């Protein structure tokens, strides 16, 4: 009895497997117009309307399931896009920083070329620190005495003069910016050659005053102001002639000629310094010789 049951069971399995394989072989062996293919087409013709009816009838249920599935898919898609967006933002930020650095380096090259500063052995330095004050009066460079940097050497940024070196150690140095209240330098307008002294406007970061000018009536808005060698006992010059300082932004008239206040906007973007150039070899005669207007601004 048991043997018969086992045999029957195995025969049934073998029979269905064999039948499946026969059907499979026949289906692949016959042409598109064969019996099985015709049977399928006939079944499709019968079942299609029923399937269509069922499809319509249960569409709300299916849509509800679809909505749930789509919601799950949308959540995973959202998470993936958030991660991708974050990575892209990091990439964009990195590229913007690189672009900004490249722009500053290019600006430095332009200033050097326009004012023939290569003769003063410029040493490029990276700004690694900045005073947190709103007045941006001091920056720290990653170059020091090991690279030939010494106190009082001029520092040039993108656009023009930035300041002068005031402290030096072996591998770093500090620069007092032209906006520091202690800063002063002999200057001259490039158009009329009017001589004076450039100093920061106290309490107004980023604004310079062109004072002690001998012929203030000749100065006009838009005039460019550059460094001037020579200087005086009170304000000795640390800068060779012709380094751009800025442009006359406005002139406030006073009661007399001596009361005219000439405001200068710095040519260099003092608040956004990443790279600067230190002129490491300025001959003494370049600091003492009053050479007039010198080079032009870029």
């Amino acid at each position, binding site marked *: 009895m048991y043997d018969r049951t086992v045999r*029957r*069971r195995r025969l*049934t*399995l073998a029979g*269905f*497997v064999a*039948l*499946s*394989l*026969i*059907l*499979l*072989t*026949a*289906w*692949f062996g016959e042409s598109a117009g064969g019996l*099985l293919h015709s*049977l*399928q*087409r006939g*079944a*499709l013709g019968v*079942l299609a309307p*029923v*399937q*269509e009816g*069922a*499809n319509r009838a*249960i569409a709300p*249920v*299916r849509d509800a*399931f*679809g909505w749930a*599935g789509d919601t*799950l*898919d949308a959540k*995973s898609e959202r998470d993936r896009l958030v991660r991708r967006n974050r990575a892209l933002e990091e990439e964009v930020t990195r590229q913007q920083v690189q672009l900004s650095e490249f722009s500053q380096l290019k600006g430095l090259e332009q200033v050097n070329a326009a004012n023939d500063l290569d003769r003063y052995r410029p040493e490029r330095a990276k700004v690694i620190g900045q005073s947190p004050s709103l007045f941006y009066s001091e920056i720290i460079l990653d170059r020091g005495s090991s690279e030939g940097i010494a106190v009082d050497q001029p520092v040039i940024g993108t656009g023009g003069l930035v300041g002068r070196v005031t402290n030096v150690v072996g591998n770093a140095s500090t620069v007092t910016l032209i906006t520091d209240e202690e800063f002063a330098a002999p200057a001259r307008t490039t158009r009329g050659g009017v001589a004076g002294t450039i100093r920061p406007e106290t309490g107004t970061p980023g604004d310079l005053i062109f004072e002690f000018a001998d012929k203030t009536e000749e100065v006009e808005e838009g005039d460019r102001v550059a460094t001037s060698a020579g200087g005086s006992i009170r304000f000795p010059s640390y800068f060779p002639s012709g380094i751009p300082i800025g442009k006359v932004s406005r002139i406030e008239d006073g009661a007399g000629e001596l009361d005219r206040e000439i405001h200068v906007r710095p040519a260099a973007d003092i608040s956004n310094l990443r790279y600067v150039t230190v002129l490491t070899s300025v001959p003494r005669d370049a600091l003492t010789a009053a050479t007039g207007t010198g080079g032009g601004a870029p």
Partner: protein
Amino acid sequence: MIEGAVLGRLAGLLVVGVILQTAVVSQVTVLGAPVDLFPLVVATAGLLLGSIGGAAFGFAAGLFIDVALLQAVGVTSLVYTVVGYGAGRLLELRDPSHGLAPMAVGAAATLAATVGFAILTFMLGVDAPVSLLLLRQILVTVVVNTLLALPVYALVRRILDAHLPEDPRRRRRRASTTRLSPLSRA
């Protein structure tokens, strides 16, 4: 022997199930994988009918699906024959009585069906690489069917229950109840 009434219900289950599966259920996707309840239906039939009934139902279901979906005739019937037979043999050998047994059987049946179908399809020359996507779809289908196994089992059992041959478990339960019942001593 399966009675005529059971055969009628099985035929009805087959036709309605295939129509619902093709027209509705297979259009629902979970994580990119279409839902396929038929491995569960075939496994449940095997669990309720035994190996011969399971194999027969699996063969018929596969054949009907192949014909209705204009697929290569014989592929699905071969896979479902094995699935139905395997579930039936489990009933005969182990007589699983645990309430969660249909879930385990459903998961195993779905895995066997999807993998078997994939292997047969590749053997028949479908030029598709075995990608991570395919493996993920198989995994998703197995997980979804495992979760749906209990309701499907309950539904199919409800459809067939009254006409099934005597269930050994029910027989055992009834016998044990009879022994413990005070009414039996009366």
